């Protein structure tokens, strides 16, 4: 029983950073902007979070710093692509390269230092209920943030007027502009939100997952988050499902490898990617729904003629 609970807990911990980064990118892409810099913003959040936590001794200040660093870093992307209308793909890729290099440089003095870890939730009485207590009331705070964030984004996109406006901009920025909607302003806010989420996901890595700083510690999770958004056809609950499938298969194959199953480890390591793609492709078979949810103006720079 305990083993099962522990496995479930590690799955949640593995899925949380993917979910947060992907939900942030989902909002960005719904506004019609493709930010390929998730990996870079994430690793910047990780180093910023670790550094602030290490220097102040407070993991909470660390987490806040991760969010702020991610948001500020995304602002660079926003200024380039939105105000200067540069190519979003090229700018996003360079943001990732810049983030990886810059974080490595900033983090040299943190390598090998002991970090601080965000304490798990502990509600007297509730957290000690067998099985359910640990899963529902005993996880790290970022896990709860990630679930609340997914619900909030779902509500925002599909139930609020502002969310509708954001989706409309993603569908056609020229039409939105013709209606008098401030396209660039909305996109700025969406990109910064996405950056803050990626930063938070990075903070989770260096303050919860493995409370230390290792160069390149995002280890491709930003790319997985990007892929999740597409395979989930830009719908929040599917992103959640995708993140958890990925987390589950990831943890499962780790256990299988430790168990010594006679399958090449490379095969096992590729399983999470395969499983996630297969499942998400299967649930996105409805072409019509996918079409409806795909932001039609994704990746196109918007320059209003004056």
């Amino acid at each position, binding site marked *: 029983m305990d083993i099962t609970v522990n496995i479930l807990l590690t799955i949640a911990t593995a899925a949380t950073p993917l979910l947060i980064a992907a939900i942030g990118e989902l909002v960005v892409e719904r506004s019609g902007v493709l930010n390929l810099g998730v990996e870079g913003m994430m690793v910047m959040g990780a180093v910023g979070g670790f550094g602030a936590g290490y220097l102040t001794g407070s993991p909470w200040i660390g987490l806040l710093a991760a969010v702020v660093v991610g948001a500020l870093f995304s602002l660079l992307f926003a200024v380039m692509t939105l105000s200067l209308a540069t190519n979003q793909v090229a700018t996003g890729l360079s943001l990732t390269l810049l983030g990886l290099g810059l974080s490595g440089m900033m983090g040299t003095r943190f390598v090998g230092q002991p970090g601080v870890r965000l304490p798990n939730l502990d509600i007297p009485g509730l957290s000690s209920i067998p099985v359910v207590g640990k899963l529902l009331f005993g996880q790290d705070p970022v896990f709860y943030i990630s679930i609340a964030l997914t619900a909030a984004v779902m509500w925002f996109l599909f139930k609020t007027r502002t969310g509708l406006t954001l989706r*409309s901009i993603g*569908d056609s920025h020229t039409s*939105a502009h013709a209606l*008098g909607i401030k396209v660039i302003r909305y996109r700025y806010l969406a990109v910064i939100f996405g950056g803050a989420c990626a930063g938070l996901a990075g903070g989770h890595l260096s303050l919860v997952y493995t409370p230390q700083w290792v160069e390149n510690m995002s280890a491709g999770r930003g790319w997985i988050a990007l892929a999740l958004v597409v395979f989930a056809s830009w719908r929040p609950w599917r992103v959640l499902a995708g993140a958890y499938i990925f987390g589950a298969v990831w943890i499962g194959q780790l256990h299988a490898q430790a168990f010594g199953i006679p399958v090449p480890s490379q095969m096992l390591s590729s399983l999470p990617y395969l499983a996630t793609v297969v499942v998400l492709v299967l649930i996105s078979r409805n072409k019509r729904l996918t079409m409806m949810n795909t932001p*039609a103006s994704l990746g196109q720079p918007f320059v209003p003629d004056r």
Partner: protein
Amino acid sequence: MSANHDGANLLEVRGLTKIFGTLTACDHVDLNIAKGEIHALLGENGAGKSTLVKMLFGSLEPNSGEIFWNGQAVRIPSPGVAKKLGIGMVFQHFSLFEALTAAENIALSLDDGSPIGSIAAKARALSYSYGLPLDPESLVGDLSVGERQRIEIIRCLLQTPQLIILDEPTSVLTPQEADKLFETLERLRAEGKSILYISHRLEEVKRICDRATVLRHGKVVGHCNPREETAASLARMMVGSEVKSVVRAPAEGIETAQPLLEIRGLNRKPATPFSIPLKNIRLDVRAGEVIGIAGVAGNGQGEFFESVSGEVLQQDATSVRIRGKDAGGLTITGRRLLGAAFVPEERLGHGAAPRMKLSENLLLSRHATDGKAFVGTGGMVKSGAVYAASQRIIEAMDVRKSAPDPEAAALSGGNLQKFIVGRELDRRPSVMVVNQPTWGVDAGAAAHIRQALIELSRSGSAVLVISQDLDELFEISDAIAVMHNGVLSEPMPIAEATFEKVGLLMGGAEPGHAEHTLETA
């Protein structure tokens, strides 16, 4: 019915000027719109109509000039400001969001924060009261162009504007739908609203407009009361000279002529969720005749053209036959080699590569079919021959240009279209398929292109023209077929065809039940 001219002007425009680079799109334009009138803005493509209304709606900023609203000088820096003043606009190229529902589309343009649920009810009520029924829950991507326009109009009316700008509203409607629109406009006028009506269809301007302002090359060239003018005199004001009318000699001996293009049981599944499937299309185009295909935009004409031209291959090779040979499995080049020629709808990017010279564009489309003429040994391009051929086309079609061999994008729409049509005509094709031959082309160039197509058919070729412009089809066709929802009707000989009959088919009436539908409508 008569308009109220006593009231003060709702909108006055003084010396409005807009310059794009070296082009003065609007040059000191003056315009007065009284309360409760339908005011026509006339002009050819490129005369500056769209630029002018974009400045009135705040999408473009004028370089100089003044705008007075109810006598007050105003600046309109954004569409939001225009809406606050009470200016509403129905766009020519709709500004709707395809992936959203009608109600969501409407909600987006209302700033009062009312919940989406109540907007759906309001929109439904208003749409029925104006006789423009609308289902707020339907997805815009699934709607016909006419239905989309209803959403645009309802969206505009829900903001209770004082001035409504309509940009070419009837270009996508069936004649019956247009009649409905005119009733709505007259009702709005009776309510004291003003309407600025942009159109190049002179008959309808004469029918519903109280006054007209005519633009040519960005300048106001006249004001008139359209009811006192004839269509010919209005056309003369717009163009600045007489427009040659198209002559169509009766086609002779068609009954016994060979079909050069045969389409049999042509089916096609929709490529995207929003595109139209083609259902069992059957059509013969014989040597010496022009067949026109009418239809409201988005009823499968684009899909049909792609299938006939070979941009999309068919499963069944016999579904398209060119000069008696199965061509369904052939690519565009294969079909061209059989003697066919194709002119697609989109000029820039599809019919021609915008940043390439005219001679290069000629080579692009003809190197495979006229290899011997244009490409020498070892694949070297004979640039002299290509240049000479392009000059021959330019002369034959009277293409006006600024340089000897300019880039395609540097030509005006009408002149580029003349070149593209001329490029195909130059091969003397035995089968010619043209999609929207004169869309967005000025009257002079349009007449030239139409005449050239008729002459090609009379010299023994089969010509198939797909067009949304009914006037054009009636001018050039020997028979008209109608495409509705991916189904093509039997061709109707031109002597029997009327606007009304064709219009009913465009709206989806069964040929046999056409009259019945009219009674109940």
